[in-house]
């Protein structure tokens, strides 16, 4: 851990992933909603932010409602560019253990029967935090992809409360939380309600084949749109 100079309370700098002013210093314990239409790279952006943290010896936790743990680990390793990282994966995509985990990568994995099993997800996150802490990662970033899938398993009231409780837990752990939602899959009111559970959001849009993002809520004014 010689290269890890982070002290508790140190701000998270995400600007190397998305170069906008509000992301230069994000308060530990913040939870950010990543919103945009389908297929615009919301999960990819969340993974990139986690991979950036890993390069600074921070922990990474991925809660996946769609991809199996093996896929998540492979994809994440590709983004980090090495097999050396502290990763916890909570796989909610099905209750069956699939193939043996990739032995090259020392990731903690926890399987949950369904994206609607909030208690199971919570237990997985708790154990992942403990496992990463045991490996020396006192801070880190958590990505949950996606809330849209969770909303098909349980109602928005429960998802809202889950986000709120999980955000509080991440705040206590001084982690950064990133949660993706497919803005095209829900009505405006549902999005409006879910947004309230977060400190800020990253909006993604696509115009003429070009993806752009901006940040709202973390500072008094929204950032400019920047290319992704």
């Amino acid at each position, binding site marked *: 851990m010689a290269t890890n100079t982070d002290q508790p309370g140190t701000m998270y700098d995400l600007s190397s992933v998305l170069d906008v002013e509000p992301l230069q210093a994000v308060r530990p314990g913040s939870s950010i909603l990543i919103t945009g239409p389908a297929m615009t790279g919301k999960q990819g952006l969340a993974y990139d932010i986690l991979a950036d943290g890993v390069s600074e010896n921070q922990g990474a936790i991925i809660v996946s409602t769609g991809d199996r743990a093996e896929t998540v680990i492979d994809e994440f390793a590709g983004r980090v560019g090495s097999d050396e990282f502290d990763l916890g994966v909570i796989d909610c995509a099905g209750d069956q253990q699939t193939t043996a985990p990739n032995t090259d990568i020392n990731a903690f994995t926890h399987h949950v029967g369904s994206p609607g099993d*909030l208690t199971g997800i919570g*237990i997985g996150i708790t154990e992942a935090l403990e496992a990463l802490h045991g490996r020396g990662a006192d801070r880190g970033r958590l990505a949950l992809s996606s809330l849209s899938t969770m909303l098909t398993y349980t109602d928005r*009231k429960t998802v809202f409360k*889950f986000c709120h409780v999980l955000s509080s837990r991440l705040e*206590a752990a001084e982690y950064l939380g990133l949660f993706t939602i497919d803005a095209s899959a829900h009505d405006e009111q549902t999005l*409006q309600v879910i947004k309230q559970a977060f400190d800020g959001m990253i909006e993604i849009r696509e115009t003429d084949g070009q993806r752009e993002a901006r940040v709202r809520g973390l500072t008094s004014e929204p950032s400019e749109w920047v290319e992704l």
Partner: protein
Amino acid sequence: MSGSEPPVVLIVEDEPDVAETYNLWLQDEYEVRMAESGSEALEMLDESVDVVLLDRMMPGLSGDEVLERIRGGESNCRVAMVTAVEPDFDILEMGFDSYLTKPIRSDELHETVSNLLERSTYDGLLQEYYSLVEKQATLEATKSHAELAESDEYQQLSARVDDLNDELSETLGGVEDDEDFIATLRELSNGDEH
């Protein structure tokens, strides 16, 4: 919990001496009721009970069976299981909110009961917070920015949403430790089923 009435604790314990000891410790702060068996506990359980202190090893209905029936019923009470051996982590998945290992000390008992009551307060605040956020979203979806700026109802609602958010941050019942965190999440799922 309502008004200035003391919270109600139901002690379920088949050994009278042990039950009486818990009663002596708690009776100054809480309204204490005592049941000598699991079936008696189920008869005595009503809306007014806030916390159940449940002995796991009892003749007749066991603590586990009583817990299952409580969770299957209407009551939203919090249950602390009293066990003879230290349970492992997986026991959180069994559906109780906290556990105590015998022999219990007075300070442990007080801490557990007040922690469970704080958790209930947190759940209540979170429920209220959600209701207000939903109302706010409805107004935002149906009115223009100009109308919202003019609306006293909307301004008051927004102020209350902010206040409640602060109150929630101060009420650590939801996340104080891993046990609280998991129990709070389980409560969300339970609430969903009813």
